[in-house]
Structures are given as C-alpha cells and as structure tokens.
C-alpha cells in the first residue's frame, strides 16, 4: 500500500536557510574563511562609524566662516565646499555668468541620458547633438543677445573637463579607426606612417604631449601669432587618444575571422563598403569593453592639463585649496571631486555593460 498523504515537509535546520544559512555557507564555511570574515568585520567596525561621524554627524554644514571648522572635534568641513563649489565647478568663468556653463552641463547631461536610450537612436538624435553643440559653444562664448563675451581662457571646472574629454573622444575615435585600418593596410607607406604615429605617441607620456603643445609649439610659431592654450591642449589630447583607440580597434579587427573578409569580398564589396558594412560593426562591438576602458582612462587623464595651467575640475579644486583663509580642507575638496569623477566613470562603465548585453551576438563566450 502506498502512503496516502505526504508528511508536511519539515523546515530545514535554521542554520542552513535564510541570512544565517547564507552566511554559514559563504562566510564561515572553512576555518580560514571564518578568520578572514572576522578580520574584515572588525576592520569595518573600526572604520565605518568614525567615517560616518566625520562625514555627517560632526561635520560643519552650510556657509559660514572657516573658524567654525577649526573647533576641537569638528568633522568634515562641508562649508568649505559651500564656499568654493562654484569655483570648483566652473573655474574662473565670470561669477555672474555662471548660469551659462550650468545650462550647458544640464543640456549635455540631458543629451547623454537621451542617447542612452537605444529607442531614440537615429538621425534626429545626431541632429540634436549637432544643434546642441553649437548652442553649447554659443552659450559658453557669449557675445550675442547681450550676453558678455567670455574668452575660452576663462572656461574651467566641470564644463572644461567634460568638454575636453568629450570632444577629444569624438574626434579621436574616427581618427583611431582610420589609424587602425591604416596599420592593417597592404600599402607599405600608409602602414608605416600609421605604425610610426601610433608607436611614437604611445611611446611618450601624455604630459610630454601636453608640454609639447603648450610650451614648445608656440616657440615655432611666427612672431605675434598665438594659438590659444585650450585649443593646443585639445589637439594634444586628441592626438594622444587616437593612438590608443587605434590599438583597441585593431584588437577588434584582428578578432574578426578571415571568412568575414572573404565573404565580403565575394559579395563584390569595395574596401570601404566592406569595412563599413561587414567588418567594423562586428569589430567595434567586440571592442566595447576595451573602448570604454580607454574612454574612462581618458576622462581621468584630462586632469593632466593641470600642468599647463588650465583650470579643469581637479585644478580648480586645488586652486580653491590655496586660499589661506580656508587652508587645509584637502579631504573635503578631493572627496567632492572624487564623487563627481566617480559618477561619470561609473555611469560609463554600467552603460557599456548594458550595451554589451543588448548587442550580444554569437561572439560572446561565457
């Protein structure tokens, strides 16, 4: 005879399910894991409460005088940021006109958010970028409709950092693709030129390129001719980024099986059509992780313009720190910058992961 009714299933032992079970299975499964867990737990308990105390509970908020931060037991001096955030965010841009770079940043971030939605991809989005770029530059320069003209030597802070890296990447990316194709070209002259360019630029540090652009280059110009500092730096950054992007793209090109090239050839496609329609779409898709890696690295590399006296976000923060009245609030200034940089880089990183998933094809190996 078979059993007619099931016994009610017994609950598993309390120690094998729920948070306790998870902890036991993952954190305390061996004696050495238990030791590591306890050590880390101890370190967290040691570090986190003082950090929270410093950053929030004992912190000095709002505006006010630096003296309020110099009392015994005071934590983070956020009033330093309150006093200096406009200098840090917008550099030396005329104070009364700083709504302009603010508007530019809002516009830029809006466009980026829109671009992240693949549904919106298309000609109208490209047109929107084109129009917005003109509007953004017009806003920054001014000189019309009663907006005072602001020379680009006064641009600074976040718009400068974002501008240098965005324009740098947008221009360097096609240049990098051309260099990558050139390096794989069958024409010896083109190939040699591309190899020499890439290896030369990759062989020197970015600082050297910036120095060349800002210190050496003006000496070769005819008397009285000066090209503005920002443009020289921007060109230097573009030349630098292009060499690195070229190698990333070349990596992608090399991963494309020979059959794809031959298939394109057998369809009778010319060189450019073959690249545009068959090879590059696949190669660039494969290259997304290293491309974004380069983008993120480049975004942070723009801080090196500090050595040629441009007030990017980080240099503006350092400049804010030189004020003797507010001397010594290094942690606050650097944390503030770190949060901004993190927000940008983390967004890029997450979005690229998202893009990889969406564009996943047979190439992805798991």
């Amino acid at each position, binding site marked *: 005879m078979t059993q007619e009714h099931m016994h009610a299933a017994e609950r598993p032992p309390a120690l094998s399910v729920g948070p306790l079970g998870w902890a036991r299975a993952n954190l305390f499964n061996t004696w050495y894991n238990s030791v590591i867990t306890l050590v880390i737990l101890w370190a967290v308990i040691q570090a986190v409460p003082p950090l929270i105390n410093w950053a929030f509970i004992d912190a000095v908020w709002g505006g006010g005088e630096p003296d309020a931060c110099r009392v015994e037991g005071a934590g983070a001096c956020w009033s330093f940021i309150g006093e200096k955030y406009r200098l840090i965010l*917008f550099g030396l841009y005329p104070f009364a006109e700083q709504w302009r770079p603010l508007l530019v940043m809002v516009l830029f971030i809006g466009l980026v958010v829109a671009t992240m939605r693949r549904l919106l991809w298309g000609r109208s989005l490209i047109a929107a970028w084109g129009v917005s770029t003109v509007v953004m530059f017009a806003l920054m320069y001014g000189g019309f409709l009663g907006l005072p003209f602001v020379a680009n030597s006064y641009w600074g802070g976040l718009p400068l950092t974002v501008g240098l890296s965005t324009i740098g990447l947008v221009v360097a990316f096609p240049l990098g693709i051309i260099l990558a194709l050139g390096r794989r070209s069958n024409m010896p002259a083109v190939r040699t030129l591309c190899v020499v360019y890439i290896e030369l630029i990759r062989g020197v540090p970015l600082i050297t390129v910036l120095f060349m652009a800002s*210190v050496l280059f003006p000496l070769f110009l005819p008397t009285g001719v000066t090209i503005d500092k920002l443009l020289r730096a921007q060109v230097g950054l573009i030349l630098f980024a292009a060499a690195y992007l070229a190698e990333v793209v070349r990596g992608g090109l090399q991963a494309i099986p020979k059959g794809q090239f031959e298939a394109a050839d057998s369809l009778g496609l010319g060189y450019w059509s073959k690249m545009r329609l068959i090879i590059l779409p696949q190669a660039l898709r494969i290259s997304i992780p290293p491309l974004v890696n380069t983008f993120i690295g480049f975004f942070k590399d723009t801080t090196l313009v500090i050595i040629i006296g441009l007030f990017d976000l980080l240099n503006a923060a350092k400049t804010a720190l030189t004020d003797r009245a507010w001397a010594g609030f290094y942690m606050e200034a650097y944390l503030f910058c770190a949060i901004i940089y993190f927000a940008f880089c983390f967004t890029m990183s997450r979005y690229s992961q998202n893009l990889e998933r969406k564009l996943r094809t047979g190439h992805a190996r798991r």
Partner: protein
Amino acid sequence: MKTKAALVAATGFVAIAATAPAFAGETLDAIRERGTLICGVSTGLSGFSMPDSEGNWSGIDVDFCHAVAAAILGDSDAVEFVALTAQQRFTALQSGEIDLLSRNTTWTLTRDTALGLNFAGVTFYDGQGFMVPKELGVTSAMELNGAAVCVQPGTTTELNVADFFRANGMEFEPVVIESLEEVNAAYFAGRCDVYTTDASGLASIRATVAPNPDDHTILPELISKEPLGPVVRHGDDEFLDVVKWTLYALIEAEEKGITQANLEEMRASEDPTISRLLGTTAGNGEALGLSEDWAYNAIAAVGNYGEMFERNVGADTPLALERGLNDLWTRGGLMYAMPAR
C-alpha cells in the same frame, strides 16, 4: 621659490628660443591696440595671485598688473590674466602670449640674461628661513647642529638647507615630507626641531596653523635670497621702463604719504616731488610715452606699495606678514624708489 626646480627643464627649451628671438615688437603699441594688458600669474598662491571664491584674481602680483594697466591704459580693469605653471611661465613671455609676467618669480642671473628676460624690479623680498619652537632656546641658525629639519622635497628649499649646513660645518637630519599639510602637522607634532621654507611661508604657517603662535620663533638668518618681481621680454626697453617706473611710483607714493584716500588732495600738493609724480607738473608721462596722469591712475587703482602689501599679505590677512625687508628704506627695509624727475 618652490617652483624653481623646474627652471632646469625650462632652460633647455628656452635656449632654442633665445637664439630665435620671438619678440612681439612694440609691446606698448600692441597693448594699446588690444585695449588690454595680458598678465601672466600663478595658478594659485595665496596673497600673491589667487582666484577668490568668485573666481576674481587677487594678490600682490595681481594688483601690480592692475597698476600697470592703469598706468598705460587708464583703466585698471583692462587686464587679462593668464594662469601659468612654473614650467610654462618663461615660454609664455618669450612667445608673446603674455605682455608681463607677474608671478612670484625669483630674480636670478640666468633668467635675466640667458632666458632673454628683463626683471623690472622687486615687488617682494623673500628668503628661506628657519622656524623653531621657543622652548628649544635657539636664537640663531648657527646653533642648529644635529637638528632634525622638516622640509618639502624637490624644491630648492631642500638644496639650500643642505648647502647651509655643509657650509657651516654642521650636521642635520632631514625629515622630508611631500605635502605641505603633512609637513605642518609633523613640525607641530614635534617630529622635527626645525621647519624651513620661505620666510613668508613660515610667518603665515605660524600665524594660521600653529596651535599657539607665540610658542614658535622665526630665526633671524635667511639662508637664500628670493627677490620676486615682474618680468618682461628682452628687447623692448620702453615697456620695461613703464613697468619699472610703475613699481617705483607705488613705492614713491608710500614714501610721500600718498594713499588711495588722499590722492585727490595730494594732487594739489605744493611738494614738487609729489606734483611731478602725479603729473600736475608735466614731463614724466611724456618721457615714458604715457599720459601725464599715469602714476595717478596706478595709485588710484591699487593704492601705494604699503597699501598693496597690507591688503594682500599684511598683518590683517591670513598670511599675517610683517613688512620686514619689504618696508621702505627710510624704515630699515629695502624698498627704495629712484627719483621720478
């Protein structure tokens, strides 16, 4: 100054420049045509040239730019400031990117000659000094044998200390710490006996960082000379004269008791020196190629040298510097203006 180490690198570049002169011709004409003076300043040095919270430049070097602009163009705001790093500053001047370099730059022989530059005078006499806690009972740098000295690396400061101790047959133990904040902390925590950097820096650290400023004393010896002044290109003597005499005018004004406040009354002064300086008696302006009220405009813009000093680095500022060497010659300092006649 701290940034001087970079000079070595710059000299190499500049040697090329010196052979191929890149002079922008008549600087004065160029400034008049442009309507602004382009002035090279630092990227941020409190009291000398620094953007405040609203991004406006302030400091003694900045004020001097305003004074020169006022003297030439009659408008003290007709200045465009270009922030320069230590490495860029000389190239920017040589290539004509700026008209005047007013950026805490030490006057040295190499810079004055081989770099193709001219120093127009000294706006601030600085020098490297020592600070010690009073409880050590040290009154002279000669008593520092065997001391632990806190110093920042990579600057001429570090080399100067080594030279000084070797020259005097003394030993010392360097405590080399990279960041200014940490050097300060190390000294006030007693990790070293002596703190060395520029005297102006010492004074301001004592005034702003020391738990009790009275516990520390700055020794009288200065072991290096750091005369800081405005710089122009070789080969344009008219502009050099204008910059030089603008500085003299500010110093002379202090000597004669002319201030921003009493400038109008002083114009009516019977003193021939004052009336020549302020242009009531004509002649000086024409000689310089400027309008006769050049000095009047300069003083109206920034006050006399003493006012400029007090406003930016004086006792009521965070730097809290004494006049010291920067006092007038009549009070024992080095500020001495040539006669404006």
